[in-house]
């Protein structure tokens, strides 16, 4: 059943569940954060509307900076503004920021220890028809490897709003990963959100056989698979790991101790993403069999988000298959 303490959206099972792009929550959160904190500035690289920085730009025109199509300048200008006491949120598509400007982020933001929030929208394969050039599948790995960097990948628009506000409070270098497509609303305004805290969204009756750790919109696929499996007598626990770094190690280890079988699910290359973070944690603390659901060392292509998620192995059927595989390995 859904964790009653988290006040999740009770309609999330329905076919007509409300769907909102995750990036929309960032846009709302940035306006709220901007109202509370005058030092917040928004900087964008010619993608103000699609990264949802538009409402902030309209409300705070003096605190909005347009750098044009120049992602290296985007983050380095932000570093300079942060050095003068500003808290910059910088947005572009994940493929370009942090895709293009990794070294500038490393040197001028994390090495330099300046509080800049890098917001990468349109991440993952679900960008869809734009094709492989625009499908950032490596961004979590690129950001996770940087010392001092916090990495957050919210599961829905409401969590994205809360994550934006929490990052404004945190005032540290961070990467916020967002998706383009509409996706099911999983949480509610009453669902707590704390950076670095994993949440068990779904628990079966009795000890679980398998734990699924997911992030982003794919959390919904994990939930649907868990519910279906429970009807077949297979008990699956689903964890939303919105904060990929710092990883909630104690939650991961506790889940491994209970289930002794862990599956990770993410819209990212298998190498270096959430699955890798979980594997690093478990290999060093409590090794158990793992299955990794994500993109297997290849690039995407044009298609609808659903087609691509299914084709590259991150659909509900893929979770079901992975659960059966891992049960055979236990």
């Amino acid at each position, binding site marked *: 059943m859904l964790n009653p303490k988290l006040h999740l959206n009770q309609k999330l099972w329905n076919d007509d569940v409300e769907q909102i792009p995750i990036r929309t929550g960032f846009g709302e959160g940035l306006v709220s954060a901007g109202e509370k904190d005058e030092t917040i*500035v928004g900087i964008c690289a010619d993608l103000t509307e699609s990264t949802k920085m538009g409402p902030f730009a309209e409300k705070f025109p*003096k*605190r909005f*900076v347009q*750098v*044009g199509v*120049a992602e*290296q*300048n985007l983050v*380095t*200008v*932000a*570093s*300079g*503004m*942060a*050095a*003068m*006491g*500003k808290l910059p949120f910088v947005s572009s598509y994940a493929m370009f920021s942090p895709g293009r400007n990794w*070294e*500038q982020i490393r*040197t*001028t933001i994390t*090495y*330099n*220890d300046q509080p800049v929030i890098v917001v990468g929208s349109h991440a993952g394969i679900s960008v869809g028809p734009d094709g492989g050039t625009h499908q950032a599948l490596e961004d979590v790995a690129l950001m996770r490897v940087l010392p001092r960097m916090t990495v957050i990948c919210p599961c829905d628009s409401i969590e994205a709003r809360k994550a934006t506000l929490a990052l404004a409070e945190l005032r540290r270098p961070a990467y916020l990963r967002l998706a383009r497509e509409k996706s099911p609303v999983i949480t509610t305004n009453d669902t707590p959100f704390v950076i670095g805290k994993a949440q068990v969204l779904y628990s079966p009756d009795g000890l679980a056989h398998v734990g699924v750790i997911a992030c982003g919109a794919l959390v919904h696929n994990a939930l649907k698979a868990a519910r279906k499996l429970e009807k077949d007598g297979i008990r699956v626990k689903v964890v939303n790991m919105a904060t990929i770094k710092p990883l909630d190690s104690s939650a991961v280890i506790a889940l491994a101790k209970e289930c002794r079988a862990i599956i990770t699910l993410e819209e990212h290359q298998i190498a270096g993403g959430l699955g890798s973070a979980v594997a690093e944690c478990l290999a060093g603390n409590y090794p158990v069999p793992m299955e990794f659901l994500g993109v297997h060392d290849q690039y995407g292509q044009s298609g609808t988000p659903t087609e691509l998620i299914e084709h590259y192995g991150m659909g509900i059927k893929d979770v079901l298959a992975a659960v059966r595989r891992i049960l055979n390995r236990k």
Partner: protein
Amino acid sequence: MLTDEKIRNLEIHANNIRQSIITMLLQAKSGHSAGPLGMADIFSYLFFHGMRHDPQRPSWAERDRLVLSNGHICPVYYATLAHAGYFPVSELLTLRKFGSRLQGHPHREWLSVVETSSGPLGSGLSQAAGMALADRIDFGAMTRRRIFALLSDGELQEGNIWEAVMFAAKYKLHNLTAIIDYNNIQIEGYVEDVMPLADLVAKWESFNWHVIEIDGHNMQAIDEAVEKSKAVFEKPTVIIAHTIPGKDVAFMERDFHWHGTPPDPQQARVALEELRTLGGRIKSEHS
């Protein structure tokens, strides 16, 4: 206008800075010689006259900011900071040693008085522009702080620089002064051979910057250019400072092989002798 006495004073500081550069590179056994020696006059000018700062209050909010984009010339930065009183001159001998605050390239975490950590080329002008814009957001036209961005000529080959050039002009960042160390050398040779910069004046002017070209060893010219940049209100200013790499050490001057090489003990002895005697014009008190 600087008085003759002021110029002499700044030149003595520059000479002391150059001696420290040689001494610290000798101890470090690695590091960059030519660039730091070439920029000693500009550093002397900025820290002993041109910039608003206070060694007693390094985190004074209203200080001018200096962003050293080409971090590899940090020996001149460290030597100047020490001579200006930010830390003991003796600490210069720890350059590049394990545990030293004087990292091989400046790191703010180790030495908080440096405004930015730098080394990888091409990012400093953007950071300086961000600082200038932040200052403008807070104080509008009544900006209190001037942001100096020090760039090398070789790093103008980085694309990031030209993104910043466009950006600073768009936002009319008149509180931003960029200074290019135009010494015409980089690691693998002369800039004009590796990747020519062509007409730099025309390039920056066409991006809508105010451009001043000077002899980077002439204190009066440096002063006039910096004062002029403070007076230009409509746009950012770039000072293209022609400098001699390895300045005042004859065997290093204009030789690109000294870009990233330190002197050995014999070479350092010759270099220090030359600096202490002002090229043989006076008797050294030390030798």
